[in-house]
């Protein structure tokens, strides 16, 4: 993020902190779609928790806006960090709820239908992503969510394509291990 962006985001932050709702609306509209896509991707398609996470993330962001420092990262990165923490907490709560809830149907009931299988996969994706190293998560996100090529990622991050390729390989491997380890 160049200095012009830093100054711009600092100005918007100060305006919002001073109570300027128009500035907030513009900022919110600018980042809403990107953050929504990220949260849905991180939740692996679990739309029920994705919507809660989205709402919780925005509310946390507006309440803690004073702590946002544009010099340390863009607003989008800051929002993603909040969302990642909220997702981890949401997944923990979901697992706790599942442990404490007894199934109404007996084990002799037929196998779970397809939507439940989809949900199971989504849950595994979400948990695997939540358990990843942030660097691996970031490179997977750039590759699969933002559809960037290795060269584009390398240029954006200021690193060599070889480094990014290597990191992507390790990230895939780590994700695969965690994904397969869950529910086994």
């Amino acid at each position, binding site marked *: 993020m160049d200095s012009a962006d830093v100054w711009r985001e600092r100005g918007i932050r100060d305006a919002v902190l*001073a109570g300027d709702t128009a500035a*907030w609306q513009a900022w919110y509209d600018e980042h809403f779609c990107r953050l929504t896509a990220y949260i849905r*991707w991180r939740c692996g*398609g679990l739309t029920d928790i994705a*919507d809660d996470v989205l709402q919780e993330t925005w*509310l946390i962001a507006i309440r803690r806006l004073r702590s946002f420092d544009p010099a340390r990262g863009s607003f989008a990165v800051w929002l993603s960090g909040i969302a990642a923490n909220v997702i981890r907490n949401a997944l923990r709560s979901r697992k706790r709820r599942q442990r404490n809830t007894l199934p109404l149907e007996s084990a002799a009931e037929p196998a779970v239908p397809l939507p439940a299988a989809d949900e199971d996969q989504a849950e595994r994706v979400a948990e695997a992503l939540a358990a990843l190293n942030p660097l691996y998560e970031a490179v*997977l996100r750039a590759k699969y969510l933002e559809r960037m090529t290795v060269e584009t990622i390398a240029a954006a991050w200021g690193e060599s394509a070889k480094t990014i390729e290597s990191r992507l390989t390790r990230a895939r491997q780590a994700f695969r291990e965690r*994904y397969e380890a869950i529910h086994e």
Partner: protein
Amino acid sequence: MSDAPDEPDDLESILAPRSVADSPALRESIRVQTERVIRRRRAVQRLTRLGALAALLMIGIGLGRELRPEPHHEFPPDLVYRPQVVVVPVVVPVPVSEPSPSPSIEKNESASAPQAEMLAEQAEDRSESARLYRVAGDGYLLAQDYRNAARCYRLFLARAGEPALQPEAQDNWLLTSLKNAAFQEKFNVGKTDG
């Protein structure tokens, strides 16, 4: 690089973003909630500013009261001792400078002060002249004509001689003072001569 499009990627099916329809209602709901937080924060900021101003004002007023010199302490009326002044009429005997008639005046008691003075000037007998001058002095004093009264009393003392300088109980204040002055004068003259 190895990121060629034709490279098989088994994670593509898992990690590719799923197309989920946007929910305008959710977006609007979150926007309203966040704007409510902003408005609440703005209200709190205004209240805080107002509170700070009010606190400053109160501190200023308090300091002003503390630093202002107080002319006197105000006490409740029931704690203040106020002496009650009761006016009691007291009868004070005031010596009246009314000359008491000497036994020798009886003869010309009805004469006025100027007439007595006239008779005193014409009297051949020195003691009679002195007596009449005293009567004239008393008359002038009664009429509050102090100048003529003093003049007549001086003539009386001159005619009566040294025995008249002795103070007597019936002497009025003017005659007493003239006797004292004459005595002092005589005393000083004697001192100077000696």
